[in-house]
């Protein structure tokens, strides 16, 4: 029996063609991009090719793209860079309660350093309240960081509206978005969203782990997080991860966003229609709407422990998640699910199903069947107690 992998928001399998390219770079094209000889030049070319491809996808300049070791480092470097650069002109930084820990923890760090930190509430759909945001932006605000697609529910924030509010209320406030879940899967319009900075990560879209990057609007001149040999125009030192970068270029070239979106839409539609009839007492946290991603579905089942269900499904080689991978280890309920106010008797029974271009309707049939069967087993067992 083959594996049904529905945890693509945690991480994805790497494209075969990318693996071949990475192998070639590891074996033969192993030069250090800083070296002046031909092997260095070859390596540098591979890095620039990827940078150009990313810039093209985002409709920005190549020199506005910098590579990092992943989404986490990207979020850290941007938030820290923005604060370090502007903390003399203001003391307030704003984010939401449903951000990824790689954003939240940096905000908490600055809170401990005495900055005025605002964590915006979200509504039941995970959306921030524009009025509250507007009220929060004052003359002291140096940064607003709001993610594009939430990794637990797929809720999409209206970045365009947020960007407008930020720039209308304060010229000096920088606007950052964690686009780790959206990059390569949804269109990101940097200009109309007034974004100054964004973060992405390769392993969420069939690229290698340990690679990510950031967009920084030209002229911002943020101080770096990691100092040294001056790679990445001085903004991110450290020998470049050439093989992964070269592999990622291939991944990006292979993306067919239209066909992926069509697939995700039909998968999600099918899943939602099926699950409602297969199990009762289920809440869909990710409705089929324009402001929710098509590749993430979060559901909450009454009187079921998500973790038990997850392991039951795992026995059938169906892989889902109870929340984000990062927080799923901790034995507490997710900050995101709490923020969107899922009822007490449902919150622990939350499962996330997330799709990739490899998933099929047939896999959903199997998943729903197993889900219904295991849910009723668990419920029977708990009710008997």
């Amino acid at each position, binding site marked *: 029996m083959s594996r049904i992998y529905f945890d693509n928001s945690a991480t994805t399998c790497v494209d075969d063609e990318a693996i071949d390219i990475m192998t070639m770079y590891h074996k033969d094209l192993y030069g250090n991009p800083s070296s002046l000889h*031909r092997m*260095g030049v070859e390596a540098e070319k591979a890095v620039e090719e990827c940078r150009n491809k990313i810039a093209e996808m985002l409709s920005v300049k190549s020199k506005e793209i910098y590579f990092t070791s992943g989404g986490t480092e990207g979020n850290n470097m941007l938030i820290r860079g923005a604060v370090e650069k502007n903390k003399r002109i203001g003391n307030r930084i704003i984010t939401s309660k449903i951000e990824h820990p*790689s954003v939240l923890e940096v905000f908490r760090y600055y809170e401990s350093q005495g900055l005025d930190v605002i964590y915006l509430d979200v509504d039941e759909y995970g959306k921030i309240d524009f009025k509250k945001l507007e009220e929060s932006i004052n003359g002291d605000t140096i940064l607003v960081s709001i993610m594009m697609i939430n990794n637990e529910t797929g809720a999409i924030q209206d970045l365009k509206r947020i960007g407008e509010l930020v720039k209308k209320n304060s010229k000096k406030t920088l606007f950052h978005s964690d686009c780790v879940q959206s990059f390569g899967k949804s269109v990101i319009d940097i200009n109309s969203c007034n974004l100054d900075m964004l973060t992405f990560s390769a392993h969420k879209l069939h690229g290698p782990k340990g690679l990510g990057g950031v967009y920084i609007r030209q002229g911002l001149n943020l101080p770096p997080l990691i100092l*040294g*040999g001056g790679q990445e125009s001085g903004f991110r030192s450290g020998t470049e991860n050439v093989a992964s970068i070269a592999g990622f270029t291939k991944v990006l070239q292979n993306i067919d966003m239209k066909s992926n979106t069509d697939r995700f839409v039909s998968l999600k539609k099918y899943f939602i229609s099926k699950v409602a009839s297969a199990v009762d007492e289920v809440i869909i946290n990710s409705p089929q709407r324009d402001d929710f991603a098509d590749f993430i579905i979060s559901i909450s089942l009454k009187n079921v422990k998500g973790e038990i269900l997850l392991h039951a499904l795992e026995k059938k080689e169906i892989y889902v998640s109870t929340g984000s991978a990062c927080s799923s280890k901790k034995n507490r309920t997710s900050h995101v699910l709490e923020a969107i106010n899922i009822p007490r008797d449902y919150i622990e029974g939350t499962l996330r199903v997330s799709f990739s271009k490899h998933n099929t309707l047939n896999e959903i049939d199997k998943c729903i069947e197993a889900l219904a069967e295991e849910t009723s087993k668990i419920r029977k067992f708990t009710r008997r107690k």
Partner: protein
Amino acid sequence: MQRRYFDYAATTPIDKRVLEVMIPQIENNFGNPSSVYSFGREARKSIDESRDTVARVLNAEPKEIFFTSGGTEADNWAIIGTAFANKNKGNHIITTSIEHHAVLHTCKYLEKHGFEVSYLPVDEYGMVDPEDVRNSIKESTILITVMYANNEIGTIQPIKKIGEIARENDVYFHTDAVQAFGSIEIDVKDLNVDMMSISGHKIYGPKGIGALYIRKGVKIDNLIHGGGQERKKRAGTENTPAIVGFAKACELVTENLKESAEKAIELRDYMIKNILENIDEVRLNGHPTERLPGNVNVSIRYIEGESILLSLDLIGIAASSGSACTSGALDPSHVLLAIGLSHEIAHGSLRFSIGKDTTREEVDFVLEKLPAIIQRLRDMSPLYNS
């Protein structure tokens, strides 16, 4: 054209056996190590085993090994992390003038944030005097960071001695062992180091992975915050294939260390001797014996290292004119200036670094071609009149 690679200090080709353990990780074990199902737990297990391996090789405890994105991040983390975590005890840091930029620029950054940094001089061989370290320690000293072996001139520092001094004075001691690891036997307990940086791509492992050894009990802040990876000290989804490959590389380089070091030393000394004998007005940079087994660094008067480099490149020889990171810049290397070379001489320097696959035939090829290249460039140089 046959390629002859003499730039192992900049980066190394991956060992076939390393790639062999990485590929299945990429293809089959791609789960997120933080995921609770078996598929994620397998990735977690691979990481734990890798940590055990790295710890064993360094004679550390597994919980003292933290994976990073490379040597640069490890250096930054060690220095910034301990500086801020211990600033209630003092604000003074001791380092040397020949460190890698990952250390130097980090120290410069700290200077802008209220720390005081002493940059110790080195002698003509690039050696730090441990007594200088001792004499620089004051009440406010919280950290000493001295590289194990220099990337440009190969000089190996008396790390154990400096470690003793640090310990006697109750000051944290970090060493950048990115170049030394894999060439010199390293035992962190014996060395008295509190922190040590290593990197994968210098030891026939992948790029974009490294580790920081942090002795149990060292007070250090996080550099990268977020999810609870690396026991809450270094956030970010783990790069499982690279970690597994890195551990394999650590294992392989230490397994054959004695043998490969002996072989490299033989080729190195042969190369140095031959260059010094057959070319006029050249000098060896770095220490004659206390140097990395694979490092040859010479200054060739009247011409630019870059020109030699490009001429060598045309015939398939890959060498370096300084460290890879700085070779793009026009400034002469800070290391060569620190050992007392004039700007002019420093500009004419060339580094050949020998690795495990280097052969006598390749060395002979370089030795055969080099004199003519140098002569041709000198003939064109306005500085040179024979």
